[in-house]
């Protein structure tokens, strides 16, 4: 599966350029944070890796083979939860794998325990708080034992306490052997979590480097401005 090579990806839905010749190579370890301004193509990049979008040009090479869909999981900013119990929602991702019901529920119970929701297993999932919902979504993804976990701004709508809890779970999932790839607008979070940073702007990777180096010595002018919170090339206010 790894390394994953994304080669010259173009994506232009409705004539709007989202990805423009994006190149990137991902190894199979650690947490990769994808950052960049709004509309840079971060979420689309994750959706392509999850198989939810197809590039108009270019290709994704999974260590020479095909995408192993059953080993990829994705969590969204606002996870959708079914009108049923927390335990059933945690086991949802195991349905396509065809696991026996008892095994699915054993696995779901195991991950609920690890994300601190075991005591709410029989509650309705839709009665959970925002932070608990996101922990459940992570548990649902974790239950399938993914090799690649894609997280699209999973903490964007959470308070600092809930964010901290989610970050702790993400670290545990990495320790468990999954490669984590995540988008965020929170640079503090990127510093806390990332092993390496992918900085995207204008549909291209402008910089891909270890986290410490990215924040101390960014190589591109765009990255330097972005870290300082200056985005003059994007913002155009009306007179």
């Amino acid at each position: 599966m790894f390394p994953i090579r994304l080669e010259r990806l173009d994506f232009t839905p409705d004539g709007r350029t989202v990805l423009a010749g994006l190149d990137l190579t991902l190894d199979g370890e650690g947490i990769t944070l994808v950052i960049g301004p709004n509309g840079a193509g971060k979420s689309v990049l994750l959706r392509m890796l999850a198989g939810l979008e197809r590039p108009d040009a270019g290709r994704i090479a999974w260590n020479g083979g095909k995408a192993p869909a059953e080993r990829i999981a994705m969590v969204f900013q606002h996870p959708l939860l079914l009108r049923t119990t927390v335990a059933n929602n945690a086991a949802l991702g195991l349905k396509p794998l065809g696991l026996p019901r008892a095994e699915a529920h054993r696995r779901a119970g195991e991950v609920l325990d690890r994300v601190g929701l075991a005591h709410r297993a029989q509650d309705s999932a839709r009665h959970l708080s925002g932070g608990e919902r996101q922990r459940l979504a992570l548990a649902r993804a974790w239950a399938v034992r993914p090799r690649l976990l894609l997280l699209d701004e999973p903490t964007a709508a959470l308070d600092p306490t809930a964010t901290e809890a989610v970050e702790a779970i993400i670290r545990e999932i990495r320790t468990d052997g999954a490669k984590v790839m995540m988008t965020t607008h929170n640079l503090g979070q990127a510093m806390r979590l990332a092993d390496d940073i992918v900085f995207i702007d204008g549909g291209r990777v402008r910089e891909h480097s270890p986290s410490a180096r990215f924040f101390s010595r960014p190589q591109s002018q765009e990255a330097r401005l972005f870290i300082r919170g200056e985005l003059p090339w994007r913002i155009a206010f009306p007179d």
Partner: protein
Amino acid sequence: MGSTLAEAASLLAHLDPEVLAIVWLSFQVSLSAVLLGALVGLPLGAWIAVAEFPGRAAVTVLLNGMMGVPPVVLGVIVYLGLSRSGPLGHLGLLYTPTAMVIAQTLLVAPLIAALARQTVEDAWRDYRTELTALGFNRRQAVGTLLYDCRYSLVVAVLAGVGRAMSEVGAVMIVGGNIDGFTRVMTTAIALETAKGDLPLSIALGLVLISVVITLNALAYGLRQWAMRRYG
């Protein structure tokens, strides 16, 4: 008028055997038809909601159109199929409760399917990305969406019950309104009113209205409970 109402009340209060037999047959026929209609209509509607195939829009329009087919027209079609010279005439089903179940099933299945399609399509719009990312195929998605929409789909099934219990044209044509054999509430009301036996008509009408109101109250209660329980 007062004496007619009193007589109707007396028929109900004394559990008149003729009234009970008609009510019992009505329930047997209509609930059997709704059960069969739901078994076909729910998965069919859900499948159309998530499937992508050429002519899907035409199928949707056709399904919606079939919700409004007059029962009497459907009765004629089933009659032609079951009559002695029809393709299924050798089965000898015409003027039997089975023929009435067939006619009502054909009446309610499109209604349930059309309502299920709309409900599931709305849910699919919300869940599509997430279920696809989890690796669900269309068949698995249909099962999951039907389960998730189960409380909303009760309304679709109830609409089927209402249509089946209240229609008169189809069962009259294929059942023949035979006393003690194929006479149901609606056909009995039509016949007895024409004969001038208003107490029996009113008694059956009261039962019919009570059934419809009770079913709707149960559905409302179930939805309220589900909203509190599952959000």
